[in-house]
């Protein structure tokens, strides 16, 4: 039987056809490879252009010459308001903080700056509006940057210096009484104070931490709820700072009063009332709400001679004068997100 496959002509034809198909396939493969290459190159070009097109030129903001929440609250808080507004703006832009002309820096402002940057990182906003900046020309102001430990949390090429006169900036979101203990040990190392003398300090820091933890979930703050703690010493006194990045005491009370339909008081009056224990806490239990009162009453102890509380628009100072606590209320133009406690402890040599 003469079948088609055995036909000589058919075998030749099949061979010619297979060679032709193979050549075509090789050609197609080569063409596809080239095409893939072109597409990938084009993609890279496009993404670069896209980024360049969407990024506006750098936004420069000048840091106040006196960069301090405690000593220059209005300018410093207004700077932070501007910074936070830029970070949260929908426009992509690189933010550049110009610190060149800064002459005086205090650590409270650096703690707040750290809180803002940490908040950006936690919310994944670093790539959208990255922040850069320069260092102050003033040597003393630059030294505060290095000594405070602020740079430990930043990417930079500056060599870190360990100083015995400061504690590093501690931060966290949970209750940690070991930090309060470290702050007391700092006082014992730099002053002839005993464990009994610093118990007000321990109790105050613990209560501040507890306030941060308790209000973490009800806060509508722009910043993530964290606490920051720091201590330093100079010739005559020990300085302690505690910063809570919640929504602030006055706003928290205001929110609750809003529910009750009561009229709005000044922030400094609200803060004053809160520190006097006039408001119940969120738990509405009579057994609660003694934390803020104990913080204010710590000024009455022998060791703590000065306490400043800055929250929202309020900036109240408590000082001891002839064994009586004197209160100085002040309302600021800008509003601080969170609460800053700043107190001075007498240094016994």
């Amino acid at each position, binding site marked *: 039987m003469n079948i088609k496959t055995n036909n000589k002509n058919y075998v030749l034809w099949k061979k010619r056809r297979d060679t032709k198909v193979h050549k075509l396939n090789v050609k197609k493969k080569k063409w596809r490879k080239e095409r893939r290459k072109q597409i990938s190159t084009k993609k890279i070009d496009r993404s670069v252009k896209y980024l360049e097109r969407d990024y506006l030129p750098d936004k420069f903001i000048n840091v106040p010459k006196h960069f301090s929440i405690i000593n220059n609250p209005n300018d410093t808080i207004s700077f932070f308001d501007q910074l936070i507004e830029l970070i949260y703006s929908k426009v992509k832009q690189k933010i550049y903080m110009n610190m060149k002309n800064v002459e005086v820096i205090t650590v409270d402002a650096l703690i707040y700056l750290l809180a803002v940057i940490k908040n950006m990182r936690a919310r994944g906003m670093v790539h959208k509006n990255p922040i850069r900046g320069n260092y102050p020309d003033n040597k003393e102001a630059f030294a505060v940057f290095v000594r405070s430990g602020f740079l430990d949390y930043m990417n930079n090429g500056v060599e870190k210096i360990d100083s015995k006169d400061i504690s590093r900036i501690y931060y966290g979101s949970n209750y940690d009484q070991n930090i309060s203990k470290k702050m007391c040990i700092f006082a014992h190392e730099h002053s002839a104070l005993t464990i*009994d003398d610093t118990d007000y300090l321990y109790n105050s820091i613990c209560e501040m931490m507890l306030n941060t933890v308790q209000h973490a979930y009800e806060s509508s703050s722009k910043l993530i709820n964290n606490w920051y703690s720091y201590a330093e010493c100079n010739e005559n006194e020990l300085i302690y700072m505690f910063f809570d990045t919640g929504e602030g005491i006055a706003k928290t009370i205001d929110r609750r009063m809003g529910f009750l339909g009561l009229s709005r008081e000044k922030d400094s009056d609200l803060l004053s009332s809160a520190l006097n224990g006039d408001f119940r806490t969120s738990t509405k239990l009579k057994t609660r709400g003694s934390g803020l009162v104990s913080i204010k009453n710590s000024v009455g102890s022998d060791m703590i001679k000065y306490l400043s509380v800055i929250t929202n628009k309020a900036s109240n100072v408590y000082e001891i004068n002839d064994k009586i606590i004197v209160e100085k209320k002040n309302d600021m133009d800008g509003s601080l997100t969170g609460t800053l406690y700043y107190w001075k402890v007498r240094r016994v040599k």
Partner: protein
Amino acid sequence: MDIYYKISKEFTDTPGPRLINEGNYSGELFLSSVLIPKFKEALALKCNLVIDLDGTYGYPPSFLDEAFGGLVKEMNMKKNLILNNLIIKSSRRHYIEKIHTRMAVWEDLYIK
């Protein structure tokens, strides 16, 4: 023979927050694991429970409130009855005063 308990040696030198879920060495933990069992033991043995507060870094108000105020509520006893068998020892007088005040507040709220 009284039952003696020094918080700084047997519990912690860094007392913590009010509730167990808020942090370590809380007032609630001290109440449930130390204060109530030891106080019941003292009642059974008809002796005093001596709580020594000295040697710690401090006592946050929330800790004292939950621990000693909570004792009034949990034992369902009036402050004065509790203090018949409970002696609070401290060189820092203000803590003893604070404990008495907080126990009185809890008594007003929970004991009828």
